[in-house]
Every structure is written in structure tokens, then in C-alpha cells.
């Protein structure tokens, strides 16, 4: 399971990469593996405001519909339109292919997220259930 060190993770298997005052959001390798073949991504509208933990996108695999939640509060300023024509990119490389970019409002919210090490331990516990 690939869990890059420089990212922060949520319990719902999203990652965020902080870049200045914006964050790139995606789903983890654990998430894409569990979802199976991804066949549709419903991207958020630009300029929508979200709170940490709000659903802002939807990913559909062959068999299921899954909500994607924002790790931080802020405004969505960009979406990865490649995912419209090629949703399978999320399976191929879930870290290279972000879903959206957020201009976050409160960096201290980052404290509530997991480090790579914490997320790895979290995934091991999840698999035991």
C-alpha cells in the first residue's frame, strides 16, 4: 500500500498536499484499491465552499457510489477535468491524479488529520475489521 510521507490523510481515505495557501485533494491507494474499477467521477463546482468533513465529490466504481469528503474547510478553486473523460486515472495513480484544489481557510484544521505513519496504522486496523 502506497502512502506518501508528505501528505495528510483522513479516516475516510482522502489525502491532502499543502502547497502554500492551497491544498490538493485526492483519494488514497487504499481507497482506490477497495473501490475497484472507477468508472465515473462527479467533480465539484468551482467556488463552492466546504467545511472540513463535508462531502464535495462523488466517485463511482462499477458496483458502488462513494462520497468524497474535504479534509479542510475552504473554497474549491480548481478541479481535475481529466477525471471526466478518464476516471480510471484514479486507479492508475491516485496520488498523481488529484480531484480538486482547495483554498483553505484554517490551517490549524490540519492537526486533526493523520500523518502517513498514523494513516498506515489506521489502515492496518481497518483491514482487521
Amino acid at each position, binding site marked *: 500500500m502506497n502512502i506518501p510521507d508528505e501528505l495528510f490523510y483522513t479516516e475516510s481515505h482522502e489525502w491532502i498536499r499543502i502547497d502554500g495557501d492551497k491544498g490538493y485533494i485526492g483519494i488514497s491507494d487504499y481507497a482506490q484499491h477497495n473501490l*475497484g*474499477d472507477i*468508472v*465515473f467521477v*462527479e467533480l465539484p463546482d468551482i467556488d463552492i465552499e466546504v467545511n472540513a468533513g463535508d462531502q464535495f465529490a*462523488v466517485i*463511482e466504481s*462499477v*458496483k458502488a*457510489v462513494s462520497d468524497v469528503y474535504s479534509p479542510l474547510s475552504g473554497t474549491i478553486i480548481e478541479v481535475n477535468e481529466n477525471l*471526466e473523460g478518464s476516471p480510471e486515472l484514479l486507479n492508475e495513480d491516485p496520488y498523481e491524479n488529484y480531484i480538486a484544489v482547495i483554498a483553505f481557510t484554517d490551517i490549524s484544521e490540519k492537526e486533526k488529520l493523520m500523518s502517513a505513519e498514523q494513516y498506515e496504522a489506521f489502515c492496518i486496523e481497518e483491514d482487521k475489521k
Partner: protein
Amino acid sequence: MGLKRTKLYDMHVKYGGKLIDFGGWELPVQYEGILKEHHMVRQKAGLFDVSHMGEIEIKGQKAEDFIQFMVTNDVKVIKDHQVQYNIMCYPDGGVVDDLIVYRYSPDYYLLVVNASNTDKDFDWIKQNALNAFADLSIENVSDQYSQLALQGPMAQEILQKICNIDLNDLKYFWFEPSVSVAGVDCIVSRTGYTGEDGFEIYMKEQAPLVWEAILKAGGEDVAPIGLGARDTLRFEAKLPLYGQEIDKDINPLEAGLGYFVKLNKEDFIGKDALLAHKEAGDGRVTVQFEMVGKGIPRSHYHVEKNGVNIGWVTTGAFAPTLNKNIGLALIDSKFNENEGEFDIIIRDKKIPARIRQGIFYKRNK
């Protein structure tokens, strides 16, 4: 109580199946991935464990008459060793189950039914075996049989390597009651639920041996396939699924299965109701549609026309071989017209779709 396991459980573990709870059975939803498996079956061959299906044996002098009474299709036209797709209805025309009927002789039939309906079907059949039919032997033999399905354009070539009959002599919807497959005695029928050529193979023992023999005989041209791809394959070929296209509240005429309902044969359970439905001429109808807007239609999503609910999606999905989002919808027949438009409600949004004929998968023969 834990999940039920088929005799192939160890094979699923060995080949890396992702095991899930499938209606109380521990079965693989996939091995390498649903799309990959789907394409494998369409292009080469795939091997499925379908041992969870139910089998019911009916024997006795009045077997033919009894089954004729229990089902909508005409079993009197099929010959010994022929197989027929069938539907059992309630008196109101709603569906008990769809099934396939294997005729050994006029006195001996094997019914293969949906896993989720086995007990219900068996009880229903027993309850109706009254009077003249009370002497029939009706047995639920599901525990005795394992079942494998080998499906795809290469299925015949692969199976031929390990069986002792000439498969060219086994035609579509016929079976051979006793075939040696890798040395194991099996029933083999040229039937399936994928829209491809293929075989369903039933055995009372040594199922894992047969599984391994098929994989070995096929090499790179065969792979184990999970239930996820089984659903995408059957849907893409427009084959009905009980619980979606048909159920106790959807009759076979509404589901577009009128071809399998012989209203001119002798009396059967549901005949009067289905005749009345046909006479009335209105009601609901199942239409094929493709998405115009972006989104995947899924089972039970609502269908609206100009903001008014007119029905629902029975099955909808991304169709991997056709590479588009299509579906079947049960709607008020008033709105049925080719190229007619309606909206599928996906997460509270109206996404446009269009009625179209002939959009489902048909294999090149």
C-alpha cells in the same frame, strides 16, 4: 451463523478472490478487477463458480403436466435433453422466480433456480403439487450439486480438451446428462448468463478438480471471474435479473419477457392475470435507454418526465464493452416512444436520457 461456502471456496482463496457476503454466501465479487474480467469473458473465456444456484428435481408420471402448470413457457415443445428458460408466476401474474428447466424425459426434470429464491421456489412448488400432482417426487437437491460456468468465445475449445463428447454436437440450450470432464461425471449444457457462447457444468463431487482442470486447459485464454463481472456481463446482454427486472410486483409482460409467456397454452398459474393485463393494453413497460447527460443510472433510481415521476430504473450501469452508460427502466407505457426523452434522478439532479432500441450487446455468431 457464518456465511455459506461452496465447494470451490479454497479455489477462490487460492486465486485471490475478493470474498464478500453475497446473499449469505461467501463468494468472490472479483479477482483481478471487474472490468478486466468482463473483457476477458467477451474476448477469450472466463470461469465462474455458480454453485450457490439452486437445483430442484421433479420426477413422476405427471411431471410434464405439473411443470406446464407451474411455468409460463410451453415445456411441451421441448425434447428430451433440451433446456428452456422459464418463469414461475403467482396467480396475480407477479413473478416467483425465473429459472431454467432441464428436461431429461417427460417424467424427469431438473429446475435450476436463483440462489436467493431456492427455498421460496421449493416451497412454492411443493404447495402447488396437489391432487393429481400429489404423487410427484419433488426434491431440493441444491446441496448435492456444484456448478461452474465456462463462458466466452474460447469456451468450447477449452472444454473440448478435457471432455469426452464432441461439443459440436451440443447445441444451444441442450444438455448432456453424463459427460466426463477431467474424469469427473458432469451434466453439461450449452447455456449461460453472459451473452457469450459457453457451458454450464454441474457435478456432485470433485468440483475443485474440474475447476483446476479447466484453468489448466485454458492457460492464458481463461481466468477466474467474480460475481461483479457476472452482473455487468448479463446486464450488458440485457438478460433479466430477479429482484430488478422481475419480482413479485413486476410481471413478465411488463418486463418485456412476453416471448417466454405462452398465453395460448393450457392453464398455468398467473395465466388469467397475464391475459387480462395483455387485454387492457396499458400499464407499465420496460424500455431500453442511454444516458444523454453525464451520470450512471442505477437500479431503483427514479425516472421523471417534466418533473413528474413516471417509473424507475430496473438495472443501469456503465456497460464496459459498449463503453457507455445505459439502462432499462420500468415506466408508464404512455411515455414509451423511440427516442423519447426523460430524466434519471441521480443524487437529486435531473440527468437526461433517451429511449433507444437495440442498444444492448449482441455477440457476433
